[in-house]
Structure formats: structure tokens, C-alpha cells
């Protein structure tokens, strides 16, 4: 460690202003602070500070994603071999998944971080850690066979248009990971929906065995084939086709508990989002005119990307409502809309992405009214004392 520290101290001057590699200052700083928490001390205000910084906060979210990711990797292999009618052992299944998953992760990080580093240098800022999470989320919410160039394009779009034009992490209006997914969804629909894309190999000529459809349960449901839905247990465990990390409600719940316990994720948003989804499901049950509307409300919470979206995407502190009362409203409406779009809009088999993006846009409005209420309370108090 000492030698590394000394080496960094030695090369540091050439990255400072006036040095030979000044244009890589942000990059150097990013790597330096990644390896060593800086030796800066407090100069004004409080003399002591909490050990948590943005890096810690972000890595906690990544940790929370680990169960869903590991399961997702295994499930890539499981679905592939199921389609092919083979039954290799656990490790072959897992390694096949890893082989498919890693390129997605690498492309996402390399493209996204590259752009982040560039913007940090242009602005003279430190590199922000927000993309650690975004870059990890993106591979989990795309189909496994998405061509890498498409993914690269989507990441670039999300980072530049979704985030940096607004001023970077902390200033963006839309969740960057969902922006990437929306970009793919509307630009390359053939690669984002249908029966072929969710299982590795199908799009590339793998002949599925008889009886294997490859469609996600949502697609089946949207097509009215409710009887084809897997069992609730299968959906809860996640042994179904879908985007890489979204299938296992169990793994997602583990992550959710971790986020809530560490205090990083907002339990208010998660709870109210699930409540919103449940309420919409019940309303649909009440007015059921087709089999899809008859699906039990609670089963909707296991279907598709609902759990993943509400736990990891809706809770993004930057794009969610930022007041505590606002969070209840925001989460509830996100859950409500997700199920509404999913069941009633035939064009979009899954409503979670659009529901959250829509609520991202409305979050400032919700906050506005919560803030106004706070102001009104204060003004009212002033009048009472004046009398």
C-alpha cells in the first residue's frame, strides 16, 4: 500500500494544473480517490464527519444488487439450456451465464465511465460515483442477447442526454438506467420484445425444443394466454425468461431489505409502490372483463420488472420525490401506473419503465406541493401569533 501511495504521490504533479497530463486530471483523481480515501481534513463547519461518502453509498446499492445479479447470471444459462433441451450441471450453467453477462457489464461501464470522465474534466469537477450504480443496473434490465453496439449507444444516450446535459449526478430529471432502456425500447423494438430475445441463443438460430416458447410471462398474459403463466412460486424464485436481473423476486427482496436496513434506499417509496400496485390490481379485479384483468392482484407484484423497478429504480434519490410526504405519493402512483399501463395498454407489455419515468417527471411537481404545504404551515403560524 505504501509503495502504491508513494508512486501516486510521485506522479501526481504531472496531472496537476500546468503538468504534462493536465487533461487527465479528473481521471487521475478518480482513480486515486478510488484507491485511497483522500487525506483532506475539515476546514470549516463541523470538525468531524461521517465515514459515509458518495462512494460508500453507491457501493451499498451495488451490494444490494448482487443477489439479483448472481441469480440472473445463473438464469441466463438455465433458460438457454432449457430451450436447447440440455441439462448441464450448475457450474456450466452459471459459467455460460457469466460468459453472456460480462460483455454487457464491461460495455456499460467502459462507455458510461468514459463519458463521465470526459465531462468531469471539462467541468473541472471530481468524477461522480452515480454511474457505479447506473452502469451496474443497465445490464440487468436489458435482454441478454442485445447487440453490444446497441447497448453502447443506449448508455451514451442515457449519460449524455439523460444526465450530463442537466449538470451531472444530482441534477438529472430522469433515471439514467431507465433512460437507456427506454432508448433501446423505442429505437430497436425488435430486440426488446417478442418471444426470441429473452433467452440467449434463440435470436441466433438456436432451435428451441418443443413446448418451450421463450416468451416472458408478461407477454403470455398480454396475449391473453393466462393459462400459460408459470406458477407463482416459479415467478417468485425467478426461473422464468426475462431481462437479466429482474426475474427473481426473492433475490430482489433480499436486496431491498439490505437497502432499507442500511438506510440507503427509501422504504417509504418501496412500501407505497407495492401498495399502489396492489391497489391497482384489486381495482382491475373488480372490473375484470378479460382473463388478464382477473389475474390476482398480488401476482402482479411478482410479474415482470415490477419488483426490480420499484426497489432499485423508483428509489433513485435524485429522480424520486425528495420530500418525505412526496415519497409516499410518488411511490404509490408509480406502482399504480405500472400495473395500469401493463394491463390496459396493449402496445406496452410492461408498464414499469414508463410508469417510473413518468413519475420521475412528476416528482418535482409533487415536491412543489409538499413544500408549499410546509410554507403555508409557517405562514399560518405567523398569523395566529400576530392576533
Amino acid at each position, binding site marked *: 500500500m505504501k509503495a502504491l501511495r508513494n508512486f501516486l504521490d510521485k506522479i501526481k504533479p504531472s496531472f496537476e494544473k500546468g503538468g504534462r497530463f493536465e487533461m487527465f486530471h479528473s481521471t487521475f483523481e478518480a482513480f486515486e480517490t478510488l484507491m485511497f480515501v483522500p487525506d483532506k481534513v475539515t476546514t470549516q463547519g463541523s470538525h468531524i464527519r461521517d465515514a459515509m461518502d458518495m462512494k460508500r*453509498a453507491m457501493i451499498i446499492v451495488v451490494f444490494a444488487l448482487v443477489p439479483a445479479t448472481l441469480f440472473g447470471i445463473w438464469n441466463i444459462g438455465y433458460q438457454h439450456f432449457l430451450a436447447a433441451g440440455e441439462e448441464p450441471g450448475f457450474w456450466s450453467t452459471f459459467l455460460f451465464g457469466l460468459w453472456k453477462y460480462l460483455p454487457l457489464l464491461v460495455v456499460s461501464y467502459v462507455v458510461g465511465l468514459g463519458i463521465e470522465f470526459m465531462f468531469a474534466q471539462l467541468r473541472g469537477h471530481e468524477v461522480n460515483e452515480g454511474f457505479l450504480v447506473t452502469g451496474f443496473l443497465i445490464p440487468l434490465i436489458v435482454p441478454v442477447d442485445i447487440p453490444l453496439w446497441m447497448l453502447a449507444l443506449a448508455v451514451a444516450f442515457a449519460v449524455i442526454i439523460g444526465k450530463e446535459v442537466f449538470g451531472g449526478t444530482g441534477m438529472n430529471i430522469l433515471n439514467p438506467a431507465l433512460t437507456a432502456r427506454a432508448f433501446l425500447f423505442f429505437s430497436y423494438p425488435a430486440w426488446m420484445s417478442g418471444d426470441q430475445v429473452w433467452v440467449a441463443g434463440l435470436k441466433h438460430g438456436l432451435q428451441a425444443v418443443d413446448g418451450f416458447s421463450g416468451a416472458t410471462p408478461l407477454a403470455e398474459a398480454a396475449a391473453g394466454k393466462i393459462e400459460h403463466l408459470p406458477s407463482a412460486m416459479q415467478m417468485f424464485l425467478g426461473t422464468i425468461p426475462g431481462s437479466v436481473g429482474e426475474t427473481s423476486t426473492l433475490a430482489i427482496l433480499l436486496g431491498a431489505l439490505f437497502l432499507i436496513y442500511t*438506510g440507503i434506499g427509501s422504504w417509504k417509496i418501496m412500501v407505497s409502490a407495492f401498495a399502489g400496485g396492489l391497489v391497482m390490481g384489486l381495482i382491475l379485479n373488480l372490473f375484470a372483463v378479460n382473463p388478464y384483468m382477473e389475474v390476482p392482484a398480488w401476482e402482479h407484484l411478482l410479474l415482470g420488472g415490477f419488483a426490480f423497478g420499484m426497489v432499485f429504480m423508483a428509489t433513485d434519490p435524485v429522480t424520486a420525490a425528495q420530500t418525505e410526504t412526496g415519497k409516499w405519493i410518488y411511490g404509490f402512483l408509480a406502482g399504480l401506473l405500472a400495473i395500469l399501463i401493463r394491463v390496459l395498454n396493449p402496445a406496452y407489455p410492461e408498464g414499469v419503465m414508463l410508469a417510473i419515468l413518468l413519475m420521475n417527471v412528476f416528482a418535482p411537481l409533487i415536491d412543489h406541493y409538499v413544500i408549499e404545504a410546509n410554507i403555508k404551515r409557517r405562514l399560518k403560524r405567523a398569523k395566529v401569533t400576530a392576533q
Partner: protein
Amino acid sequence: MDKVIKLKRGLDIRLQGEAEKKVGRASEPGSFALKPPDFHTLVPKLTVHEGDEIKAGSPLFFDKYRPEILFTSPVSGQVKTIFRGERRRILEVIVIPDGKQDHLTFRKSDPLSMKREEIVEELLKSGVWPFIRQRPFDHVADPEDTPKAVFISLFDTSPLAPDYAFILKGEEKVFQTGVNALSMLSGGKVHLGVHPERSDSAFVSALQNVEIHYFKGPHPAGNVGVQIHHTDPINKGDVVWVVNPQDVLIIGRLFEEGIYDPQRIVAVAGSEVKEPQYYRTRVGASIAPLVEENVKEGDLRFISGNVLTGTKIAKTGYLGFYDSLVTVIPEGHYSEFFGWLMPGFGKFSFSRSFFSWLTPKKKYRLDTNLHGGHRALVFSGLYERVLPMDILVMQLLKATIIGDIDQMENLGIYEVVEEDIALCEVIDPSKTEMQSILRNGINVLIKELG
């Protein structure tokens, strides 16, 4: 007992080196200093030159815009240096004591038998007035105002805070005289913020002319601003005066003995102090005799005040005008290898993102390391968890950063000063300098209000 207001939100930071409840002996300080930066928004005008002989209670400087407010010497002796900083700003007026402690004498009288103007005049003349501060803004009170209340918090919940029950023991009579003077100033009762267990109930129940409010809960429950918020909140145009408990004694002594006697019992605490305990000294005293032989080796930070809001001073620096505590903690000049990734068993954090949540009762030896770099504000809902007030901290700060005065007023800038949001600053993962942002905002506001 009356109703106890229980505050839930907040955070007690447990630090090592709490002061033992005894008053130690230390040699007399070799110099004293009055520091104009201790007083927000003050523009000082000197009345002395280097080399002048002065008595205790002689003015050293006054407020340029309110010349009746004098700042006087705590001891008799000679003005040694007038220490200036950038743009000739006066930082310290240093006085070498002559050991005789010659006092200027003021009127000795029972404040209850005096007129309000007479009390104000005595306080101003003697230099005791600056101990009375006003909310909003936390600067020296304006003698022309009549406050809607005077508020004293009798307990301090900040880390390593001095125990006022111990300090005030035996001072009932002087304290009562001080309270009487303050009650004449406000024209009503003096409000006392009291902790049902930490305050001395016999002391409290013997007091007259006071209205007692009981508060319980983690820091900042002892902050007078929080207590005002829960009893009689400050709206635009309101003025409330606040005084520290020990400074009530200084006011009391002025009327009991007719002299300016700014004695104070100061706690010397912190993980790097060998024998943390209390000492009797004066306002503006050099801390050198208190810490010279009494601190451990290493690169240390000396703070006049507590670790949340105190002022960084040198080892030979001077006790601040309003401070009853000297804290000594280690500096944090080190870079930690992958510190953000480690399990962090011994790391202090409000969040449960380090394993230190396993040991909630642990007392920490915290240093001054920032633990990260400055980032944009990302986390919402975090700051309100350590501020038991109906205030949206992040929104208020954002309004302050962009200088939106209407919104600052709307969101309650009149109700908070630095000490109230200090905890928000401590737990902020974005490492925002919230206290200085708030102070800059208050300065803008004062300028705008005229």
C-alpha cells in the same frame, strides 16, 4: 412536572474523553484576547492602541454601526498586539494581564428595582451586553429591540458538552439576579429549556421569574433554537434573545458586585486530553495553561467550543467569547486504502452502511478527516432525521445557495442558525459545507433587509 417535549429525531455522537466532574488547577493565562470574528456581522472599531494600559471592563472596541455596544477587556493590563488578517481585518486584540485585576466599577443594584433603560445602559457600558444574542441570525442583540422572549437552554446535548448542572452548582443567587435583569429586558418571564434528568431539579425549582419547558431527546434537543421552535417559533419580524447559562452568571455578577467579571468554568475534553476535566478561567483566556502538559502526542486540532460548531484555534489560542468547552481531537491527515469499501467495524456513521452498527454504544475517537470528496446533494430525507424541526433542510439549503430570498424566508431561515444544521453537515455523504452556506445566506438576507 410539566409536560416534557420528547424529541425523537437527532443524533448523539459519543466521543471519548468526557470531562470528569471536578475543577482542576492550572496556572494563570499569560494573555487574553477578544476576537471580533466571534461576533457575526460585527464591524469593529478600535478604541485602544497597542501599549495602552487598561482596566477590566475598559472598552477595547465597539460596533461601528451600533456604537453603544462596547466590547471590553476581561482583565486589567496592557494591550499588547492588535492582530490583523487579510484586508486589515481585526482578528484578535491581545491583552497581557498585570495580575492586579483592577476593575472599572459599575452600578451595584437590584435589577428588579431598576428601570429597563438603566439596565440596558449598565449592560452596554460594562461590555456585558454582547453576551445577549438574538435569533434570528445569532448576532449580538440590538438594544433598541424589545424581544418577544428571552430563552436560556440549561443543558447542552452536543458531543462532550459541559454539564451545566455541575457548573451552576452553588450559583443560585447570582443566576437569579441575572434572570431578573433579563426578565426586565423582555418585559415578561424568561424561558428556560430544561432536561428532566440532566438538569439540577432543586436548582431549577428554586428559580423565579422563569417559565420552564422540559425537553428530552438526542442532540440537538439542547439547542436553544430547537427549543424555541417547539415552544414559540420565530416568524418573520420576531426577535428572541438567547443567553448561555454561564453568561447569565456574568450578568448577575455585574448587578451583584458592580464589576465586569467574565469568569467561566470551562470543560477541557476530547480523546487527546490526558485528564479531561473542568477549569476556572475567563472569557478570552489563552488555553495554553489548560492544554500545555495535558494533551497526548501527535498532530492535534484544538477547538474552542464543540466538534460540531467550534472554532479551530492554535494550541496557544484563545477561548471564544461564547464557549464553555475546549475540545482536542486528532487531525486526520491520512489517506485510507479502499476505505470506502472496507467493512468498517470501528467507523462512525449515522447510516448503517458500516459494520459499526453492531456497536451502538461505542465511544469514538474521531479525527478531522473529511472521509470523501465534495459532491452534489444526492440524498434526500436524510438531513431531516437529525433536525427535530418542521424544516425542509435540503430545500432550504438549495434556496440559500441560489440566493432566493423569498424562498429562504418561506422555508424558515429565521429559525435556524449554524448549530442547528451542524449535524446535517456531519452526516452528509456529499460533504457539503452547510454551516458556511447558511451563514452566507443569512448575510445576504441581512444586507437585503437593510
